[in-house]
């Protein structure tokens, strides 16, 4: 037993990496199919997007994530756009972090092609703008003050969808998808002074920091990490809007198995640590 404890305490950390790697791969090859239970916070976002059906108002998505966090936030973007396009809700995309501009365009284009949507009528991508506080303040008056042309340098006036959109009053529901604090800046510079319906979609590591914004009503819900995205996919399936789950749900089995392995290592590490302390205490006595 002592030997085993010593080996555990001196275990090369690469074995833990290997264990996590295997746990991440195996469920893709042999799916477990664990149930997904949507949380109240994700349900709230879903309900707000659903409520846009038939209003003609757009779902505004701020794509503030880059390839580094695409695995977590990308599936949210896909699920949200699927939801909007399936209900014929127009989508307006914009971006405030330069490393995510092309990625945002890829996601929007893919979703639009999947649902046969036409650029300028069903969706518009405004592209990247710096100095986000100015842009958010400008958008309270007229979006054209900051975006006089879209990502492809087409004048906004030439896009039929944009003729009905002037400022926050014309936004149906806004969602900030981010792997950065940009999702919070939307609350500081946008929701705070101009009070429009907004929700956060963020990486799991950020989610716990943003729950207080739900409590205050500044965020109408939160989609947190891959788990949140999987819950949204489950809601789309439950509502009969889609027939299959997406990438996030696909990865959730791996997520659960990896968590079990991490918990196992934490428990084993603690047992070994306290065992070692006990032995040292006994040796001193």
């Amino acid at each position, binding site marked *: 037993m002592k030997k085993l404890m010593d080996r555990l305490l001196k275990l090369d950390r690469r074995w833990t990496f290997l264990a996590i790697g295997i746990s*991440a*791969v195996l469920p893709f090859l042999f799916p477990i199919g664990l149930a997904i239970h949507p949380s109240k916070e994700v349900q709230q976002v879903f309900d707000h997007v659903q409520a846009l059906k038939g209003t003609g108002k757009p779902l505004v998505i701020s794509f503030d994530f880059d390839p580094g966090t695409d695995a977590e936030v990308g599936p949210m973007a896909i699920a949200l756009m699927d939801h909007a396009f399936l209900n014929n809700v127009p989508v307006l995309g914009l971006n405030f972090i330069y*490393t995510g501009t092309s990625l945002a365009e890829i996601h929007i284009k893919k979703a639009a092609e999947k649902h046969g949507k036409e650029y300028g009528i069903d969706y518009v991508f405004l*592209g990247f703008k710096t100095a986000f506080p100015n842009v958010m303040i400008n958008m309270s008056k007229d979006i054209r003050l900051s975006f*006089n042309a879209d990502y492809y340098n087409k004048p906004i006036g030439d896009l039929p969808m944009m003729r009905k959109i002037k400022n926050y009053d014309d936004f149906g529901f806004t969602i900030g998808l981010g792997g950065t604090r940009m999702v919070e800046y939307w609350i500081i510079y946008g929701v705070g002074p101009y009070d429009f319906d907004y929700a956060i979609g963020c990486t*799991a590591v950020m989610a716990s920091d943003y729950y207080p914004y739900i*409590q*205050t009503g*500044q965020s109408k819900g939160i989609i947190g990490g891959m788990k949140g995205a999987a819950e949204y996919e489950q809601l789309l399936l439950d509502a009969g809007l889609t027939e299959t789950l997406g990438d996030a749900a696909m990865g959730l089995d791996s997520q659960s198995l990896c968590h079990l392995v991490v918990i196992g290592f934490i428990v084993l590490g603690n047992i070994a640590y306290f065992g070692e302390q006990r032995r040292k205490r006994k040796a001193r006595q």
Partner: protein
Amino acid sequence: MSGEFLIGRFLSANPWIWVAAFFTIAMYSFLYKDNVVYKVAENIFVGIAAGYLVVIQYFNIVKPDLVLPLFQEGKFILIIPMILMLLIFARVYQPIAHLSRIPIAFIIGVGAGMAIPTTIKAMILEQVRGSLSITYFGGGFWPFIGGLILFFGTICTLVYFFFSKSHEGVFGRVAKVGTYVIMIGFGASFGYTVMARISLLIGRVLFILRDWLGIIG
């Protein structure tokens, strides 16, 4: 099985997928030990990110908001921000480096002016209101208990951060409860952090198994 059979049928035929797969494996090779392939991939990433920044900034900001309006539409007022922009680059030449302080002072002044009132409202006043709302979790017994825990948890945590009075007696016990609340908060954050990091790994695993190797559908 020949390579031709594998590529297209299972392995991706898209060269960019192969590039992405190479860099993914190169980055994860660091987990075994630091190595030259990892270093090369890391440096390429930094270089590409810097170049990408310049291109995106020019085509999304400088060209549509400065170059075209100034030189095609004759909006000469834009000469002022253009001069301010150029002054930023004065930093690279020591004799005139001090001039870069002018646009920096402008940025800080405007930024602070916009940030202070909005931040106070969104992150202090609204949060105080929200933290004191014991009805947040809705009606019923357990939601009410949840609201109470939130309310007293906030108070206890604030007491812990009150250092002008020694943490003794009742005050000390309340502060102690505050530390437990903080630890629970850290635990939740750590749990989310583990979930986030593993999600990123899963994203890459999915890419390698599906997009590159074609093992899963």
